[in-house]
C-alpha cells in the first residue's frame, strides 16, 4: 500500500441552510477543496451521504454530484453507513489511493436534512425496523437506553452528561462554521426539555444541513498541491450487533473499540499519542462511551475526565475542538468528513482560536446507528 496524504479541505457552514440544495452544498465544499489545491479534475469521487433518498427524494448521488462539479465522466459513487457515511467515504477514498488505483480522489460528505422530510423517521431507518422502530423508539431513545445502562453500571450522572454539552458548546463558540455558536451552562442543559429520559434537548445534536470535502493523493505527490500535507497514518473500521438488544453490554460500544484498535495498530500509535480528537457526540452519552471504548478513559471514567477539563481546549486531550456534533451541527453524511477537516486544520496550525498547541497526531471517530458501525482515522502532520 502507498502512503496517502490529505492536501486540501473544504466545508460549508453547518446549519439550517434553506437557500442551499443538496447539490449546492456538495459543490460548494468540493470546489473549496479543489480550488485550494488548484486541481481541475480528479480520478474518483466518493460521496458520503446517509439518506438523500428519504431526506430530499434523491438517489444516485455519484453521477449527479460529478456532473454538477463539472466532472461528468469521472467515476463517482455514494457510500452509506448511516451517520458514519462520511467517515467510510474517507476510508474508501484512502483505500483507492493507497492501492495505487488512483492518484487524486475526492471524499465529500453531504446531507440536506431541512427540506420538509420527517427527520425522526428518516434517522430511525438506521435502527432495526422490525425489532426497534416498530415499538416506537427514536435515536435519542436508543442513546437514552445506553445512558441509563451506563448510569446503572458506573454511577454516571446527569451532570456528567451535561458537562459534555457545556464543553462542546464552549469550543463551538470559537468555530465560525458552527450551527450554534453559543455557550450553555450546566443549569441550562439540566433544565432543558426531556427528549428521551434521561437525555434532554441540550444533550442532543441538532438537525443540520452541510457538506465537507477532502482531497487525497499519494504522499509522494502531496507537495505538488500544498506545502503542508497531512498524512493518513491509520484507518480502522468495524461493525457490531445491529440492534441494541443484541449487545451483551449496551453501554459498551464494541465497534468503536474494534475500529480504534485496528487504527492504532495500523498507525503504530496508542491512545496516549493522540494530541487532538474529534469523536461522534451525536448525544452527550456517546462521547463518554466513545472515550472509554477507545482507551482515552477507563470504563466508567469518561465523566470524571470530562469534568476535570482534560478534554477541554487547554487540557491533556482536547476532544471536539470544532464544537462536535452538538454545537457545530450534524448533517449526518457530512459529519465524518467535517471531523477530518477539523483535524486537518489543527495539524496544519490553522485552527485559530481553537488551535491545540503543537498538535502533531490527531484522530477522528465517526459512528453509525446506535454504534453498529464505527470508523476511526489517525492523522499526522508531515
Amino acid at each position, binding site marked *: 500500500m502507498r502512503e496517502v496524504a490529505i492536501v486540501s479541505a473544504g466545508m460549508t457552514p453547518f446549519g439550517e441552510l434553506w437557500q442551499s440544495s443538496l447539490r449546492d452544498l456538495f459543490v460548494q465544499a468540493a470546489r473549496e477543496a479543489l480550488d485550494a489545491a488548484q486541481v481541475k479534475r480528479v480520478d474518483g469521487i466518493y460521496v458520503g451521504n446517509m439518506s438523500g433518498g428519504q431526506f430530499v427524494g434523491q438517489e444516485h448521488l455519484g453521477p449527479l454530484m460529478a456532473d454538477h462539479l463539472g466532472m461528468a465522466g469521472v467515476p463517482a459513487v455514494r457510500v452509506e453507513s448511516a451517520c458514519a457515511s462520511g467517515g467510510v467515504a474517507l476510508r474508501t477514498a484512502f483505500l483507492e489511493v493507497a492501492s495505487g488505483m488512483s492518484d487524486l480522489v475526492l471524499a465529500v460528505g453531504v446531507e440536506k436534512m431541512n427540506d420538509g422530510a420527517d427527520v425522526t423517521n428518516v434517522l430511525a431507518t438506521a435502527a432495526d425496523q422490525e425489532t426497534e422502530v416498530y415499538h416506537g423508539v427514536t435515536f435519542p431513545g436508543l442513546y437514552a437506553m*445506553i445512558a441509563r445502562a451506563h448510569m446503572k453500571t458506573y454511577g454516571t450522572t446527569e451532570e456528567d452528561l451535561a458537562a459534555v454539552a457545556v464543553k462542546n458548546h464552549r469550543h463551538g463558540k470559537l468555530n465560525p462554521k458552527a450551527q450554534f455558536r453559543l455557550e450553555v451552562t450546566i443549569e441550562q442543559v439540566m433544565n432543558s426539555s*426531556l427528549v*428521551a429520559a434521561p437525555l434532554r434537548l441540550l444533550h442532543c445534536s441538532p438537525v443540520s444541513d452541510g457538506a465537507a470535502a477532502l482531497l487525497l493523493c499519494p504522499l509522494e505527490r502531496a507537495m505538488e498541491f500544498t506545502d503542508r500535507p497531512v498524512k493518513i497514518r491509520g484507518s480502522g473500521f468495524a461493525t457490531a450487533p445491529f440492534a441494541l438488544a443484541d449487545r451483551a453490554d449496551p453501554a459498551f460500544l464494541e465497534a468503536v473499540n474494534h475500529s480504534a484498535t485496528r487504527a492504532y495498530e495500523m498507525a503504530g500509535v496508542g491512545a496516549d499519542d493522540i494530541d487532538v480528537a474529534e469523536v461522534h457526540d451525536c448525544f452527550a452519552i456517546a462521547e463518554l462511551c466513545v472515550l472509554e471504548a477507545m482507551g482515552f478513559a477507563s470504563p466508567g471514567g469518561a465523566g470524571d475526565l470530562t469534568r476535570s477539563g482534560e478534554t477541554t481546549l487547554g487540557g491533556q486531550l482536547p476532544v471536539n475542538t470544532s464544537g462536535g456534533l452538538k454545537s457545530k451541527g450534524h448533517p449526518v453524511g457530512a459529519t465524518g468528513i467535517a471531523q477530518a477537516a477539523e483535524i486537518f486544520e489543527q495539524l496544519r496550525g490553522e485552527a485559530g482560536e481553537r488551535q491545540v498547541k503543537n498538535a502533531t497526531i490527531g484522530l477522528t471517530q465517526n459512528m453509525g446507528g446506535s454504534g453498529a458501525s464505527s470508523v476511526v482515522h489517525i492523522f499526522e502532520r508531515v
Partner: protein
Amino acid sequence: MPSPRYWREIPNRLRLEAARCKGCGKVSYPARLVCPSCNGMAFESIRLSRRATVVTSTVIHVAPADFQMEAPYALAIVQTPEGARMMVQIADCDPADVGPGLEVALEFRRIKQEGQSGILCYGHKGVPAR
C-alpha cells in the same frame, strides 16, 4: 406496512417464537437463518416465557408520528428467562417508575395504528409483574 410483511412477522411478534441453536444453545429472537454465536444453521423453535426483566430503559417524550398520542411512554430492553432480549414498551404504570431490574409480564397489545386507514399493528408490551 405492506400486509405480507406484517404477516411474515406473525410467528415472532404475535406468538413470541424464538430459535434455539442446536449447536451452541444460543437463543435468537426473532429467529435467524444463521446463529450469530456459532454460525450454525440448525435450530429448534421455542416459545418464549411471557415474563422478562428490564435491562435498560428510557421514557420517550418526543415521539415518532405514529406514537405521538401516547407520549410520554416507557421503552425498555428486557430479557426473558431463556436469555432472549427484545425491545418493548412498558405499559400500565408511571413511565418514571420503569428502570433496570423491573420484572414485567409480556402481554399481547396493540402497538400502533398506521394512519387513519392503515392496519392495526399488534405485538407485546411489558406490564409490571403483580
